[in-house]
């Protein structure tokens, strides 16, 4: 299998093709993922689709073949040019948790994840926290402060989410570029702190 790693086929243009970097924005439906991607992206957020063929449980009696249905998983993303050598992509996870296939693919090689939570519906972000924790992918929790939501202290949220103490929790407003930017900076610092020493 051909590996698309940075060092094959690479004598030409090596200084002009940037290294891509990924950050994932995860969390439950309506928590502000697309909003956050859009507020820091240098391009209007783009949407793309992956087609997945879903095998049904049964075998078709007549034909003896599995029936399949095609599902479309939408993925939105934005881009930040970091330098001529680095370009950062922000990917919002697909809305439904069951598209784990897509999550795995997004997580591969990502520097980390911002898990957005809405304090009115904390449970909608449990699956995301679980996913990144189990895979030992650096993540932070960003509490998207919706106007009408009650305010909580960090330790109340930490306890409610059962997030270990080494995982940063930040308050943010996904609509504000500076606030979203600070959440990303916090994540990158956290990812650095999790690097093996030496």
């Amino acid at each position, binding site marked *: *299998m*051909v*590996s*698309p*790693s*940075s060092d094959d*086929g*690479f004598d*030409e*243009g090596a200084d*002009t*093709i*940037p*290294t*891509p*970097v*990924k950050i994932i924005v995860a969390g439950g439906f309506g928590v502000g993922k697309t909003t956050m991607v859009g507020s820091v992206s240098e391009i209007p957020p*783009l*949407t*793309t*689709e*992956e*087609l*997945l*063929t*879903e*095998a049904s449980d049964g075998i078709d009696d007549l034909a003896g073949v599995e029936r399949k249905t*095609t*599902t*479309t998983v939408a*993925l939105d*993303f934005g*881009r*930040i040019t*970091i*330098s001529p050598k*680095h*370009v*950062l*992509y922000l*990917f919002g996870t697909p809305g439904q*948790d069951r*598209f*784990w296939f897509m*999550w795995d*693919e*997004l997580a*591969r*090689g*990502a*520097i980390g994840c911002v898990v957005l939570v809405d304090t009115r519906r904390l449970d909608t972000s*449990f*699956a995301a926290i679980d996913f990144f924790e189990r895979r030992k992918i650096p993540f932070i929790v960003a509490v998207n402060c919706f106007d009408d939501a009650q305010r909580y202290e960090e330790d109340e949220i930490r306890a409610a989410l059962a997030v270990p103490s080494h995982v940063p929790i930040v308050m943010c407003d996904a609509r504000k570029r500076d606030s979203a*930017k600070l959440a*990303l*900076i916090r994540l*990158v610092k956290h*990812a*650095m702190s999790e*690097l093996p020493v030496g």
Partner: protein
Amino acid sequence: MDDGWYDEAAGPLVRPYAITAGRTSASAGANLDVATQVMTLRSAETTDGGLTPEHLQIKRLCQKPLSVAELAAHMNLPLGVIRVLCGDLIERGVVIVRSPAQRVEAPNRELLQAVLDGLSKL
């Protein structure tokens, strides 16, 4: 809440075969990441023979490096199709690619520092 959905080794979801004539797994592009940068080589100018309009569109769009995801969005095609088309172009020496560093590689403190510096300057 059922949190077992991602632990199955192989779930009910598999990639489509029909759309790319079964070339999904064999293609050089099969493993391209959504963020992989694709760039057209200048030396590829004269090798258009046998390329489809979609190949040529990728060739044009990637005069400046673009990600697989951006190509899919701009061309309004599924990611899987873009991967196969890019695989064809890699094999023909029309484009080169650069993928995100994988975590198994050397610690990337330098990379993270570059991202941090870039974000701080925004």
